[in-house]
């Protein structure tokens, strides 16, 4: 069986709640896309509406550095 690859995983650990649906965010499958590249990740996702949460540390850290690397490709 093929092992699914994830570039990054964040578990919300019950600390985040979707205000629209009133449920807790869960670790769920998401995808970052930039300049025709896609990266499967696991992020806090609302199980009802599918809201994907990108925490500040991730946005300013890993995401920003991958953005810069792809921009210079």
């Amino acid at each position, binding site marked *: 069986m093929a092992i699914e690859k994830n570039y990054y995983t964040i578990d919300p650990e019950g*600390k*985040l*709640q*979707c*205000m*629209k649906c009133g449920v807790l*965010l869960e670790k*769920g*499958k*998401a*995808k*970052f*896309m*930039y*300049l*025709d*590249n896609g990266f*499967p990740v696991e*992020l*806090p*996702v609302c199980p009802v*509406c*599918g*809201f*994907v*949460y*990108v925490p*500040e540390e991730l*946005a*300013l850290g890993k*995401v*920003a550095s*991958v*953005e*810069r*690397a*792809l*921009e*210079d*490709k």
Partner: protein
Amino acid sequence: MSQIEERGSTHVYKVNRISKEEIDSMVERCVYEEPPFCNAACPLKLDTRAMLKAAGSGDLKKALQVYEKAAPFPLILSTGCEAPCEAKCRLCEVGDGIDIRNIEKAIARYGQQTRLGSIFRTKKKKTVAIFGSGLFPLFLAGELEKKAYPITVFCEQETLEAFLHCETPFLDTDAFSLELKRLKGKDIQFVFGCTITSSFLEEKRTAFDVLCASGSVFQQLYPEAAFLPELMICEAAQLVTCREEGVMAAAFGAKKAALTVDRLAQNLDPRNMRGSEGACESRLYTDLSEAILLKRIPENGQGYSAEEAVAEAKRCIQCHCEECMKSCAYLRHYKKYPGLLSKEIYNNTQIIMGDHQLNKPMNACSLCGQCTVVCPNGFDMAHVCHIARQNMVSTDKMPLAPHEFALLDLYFSNGDAFLARPQPGFDTCRYVFFPGCQASAIAPETVKAAYLDLCSRLEGGVALMLGCCGAICDWAGRYEMTGRTEEFIDREMSKLGNPIVIAGCPTCAKELKSHEEISVRGIWDVLLELGLPEGGYGLDRPVAVHDSCGARGDAETQKAIRTIAEELGCTVIETPYSGDRSPCCGYGGLTAYANREVAAEMTEQCLKRSEAPYLSYCMACRDRFARQGRESRHILELVYGTDAGSPPDISEKRRNRLTLKNDLLRELWLEEPMEMKLDYQLNYTEEARRLMDERMILTDDVIDVMNFYRETGEAVYDSESGLLIARNRVGNATFWIKFIRESENSYTVHGAYSHRMNVVKRQG
């Protein structure tokens, strides 16, 4: 807001806007890599500068290593050398040149030899025989030993001492024993007591790959044979040899001969791939104005002591051309001289697949043109970076991220904040005031005062145009956008009756002058003609005038600003690098957007020229200096008695432009502008404001997110921080806002961040 299309990663090669020839001809202008004059004058290509640097630092061992690269027997060479380098020393032009030969003698005598032999080195397979004795065979053996050839010297002498002594009677006992020790340390085989005849030589031909002979052996055995001095070879006799006499001639001949041997040993034509041989001319530029002139250390006929040699070597000014490096913070940041940097930037534009590592340096140049003025050969780094940016755009490889904020700002200036109106009471006008986008953003009151003044004192009507001249997209290399902006400005100008532009910004003036239909004057010229209005003020302490890069090469504008400042009662200080040599404040070329670190270094460099308050005539310079806490004024603030105060943040800059437009529409053209009013209240913590400015997030972006949140209710509650977090994708970025809902219609923003990647839920 208009959106700019992000590039894809599947490149379709379109137009190459940069040519290799163009770059090569520019690179040719950079003389950084040219040899210093002493080095160029030396036929042996001794790196005199490096040798003197090592010696000057007291490291005679290292100095000797450098010297030995050119001279396998340094004491013999330094004694017999004619020192053509000394006459070329640039210090001779202003005082005493360096006594290079005596320093060399001291280095050879006192410098500790490091490598006594090369017996452990892997030898080459091809073998060389040298016949005869004298300086040429000795030097040639030394050169070939460095190249690791197995060498056998056949000589008439019976001992090594006799072999060395026969041609070096000028050496004193100490020097002789030192050179003898050096010779013994070299991996050279000697066969003594030979009688060298034709048959002897021919006999050895089968045992060795290359044969060499001293000049006297060659003369004696082949008196009629032709000799090629440039290759040091007699082709008829298949013999590498020499003809010249004297130490220098022998040393230079041995260098050439060693190269010939090298080529022959590899079965290659000795004529090819010889590189530059012998003395040459250097195009290096040396600034002698800062040279510290000291007298030559006297030499008493006995040679320098080690200490004296070090002191004399210390006087060397280490000729380098670093005029651009001295003045440009950008080149200093990347620690690369323009010739090399241009080559690398050109290569960056030609990469089809792979990393474009020079994107950042290419986008960090402020395109200010200072290098062209300070470079003795007029190297134009701005042109190189500008066409490189255009090329990246034309081949669809230019990332949008470094310039997108500025380009969207241009869209804002020429969209929501744009205003073009004839003076009330006129259909078309003789003049149009074009203050520039930064003036409206930073000092809207000053713009208003200037416009009202021009309207009241000029005949024929003065229209107003608030917008961007197009410099932003031009700097970004977006040539198609630049074309569209030019057309837009032209259309608007034509509606106003193609008036004469009165520019409030030197960069706008320069940019608009490139339009065929537009004639441009600077407001400074108009003010001098009309006389300064009432209400202006000068500062009671001296001011340092910072010249705008837009006014480079425009002596009249530079003079006009100083005249106005003096008429206002200012005492003007001229700083180093003023006028045409002025550095960029860090805003030009979009450096402030693409590379904040370099931009900050540029600002710092500008400010370190003087402790006085700065007086600028470009609003971007005024803003950047004020942001660094320096008292900073624009000349128009002084003329109109206004004070733009502390610098606005990025959102205030936009709001100022919009407010100025709306106020003027209301007051002068009696129009009620459409103004967007929020039906809820947004407050910001100080920290949120700081983060937004640092992360280039506008209040408009926050409003976009909050509107989306209020529409959809989509947000996350973080139980740890107690904050709500909402997001919206605006253009090419996703903005996230952290806030507290104070009431149904009131929110306090605590933080904001963004990313350009798009994120979606994945199935399965």
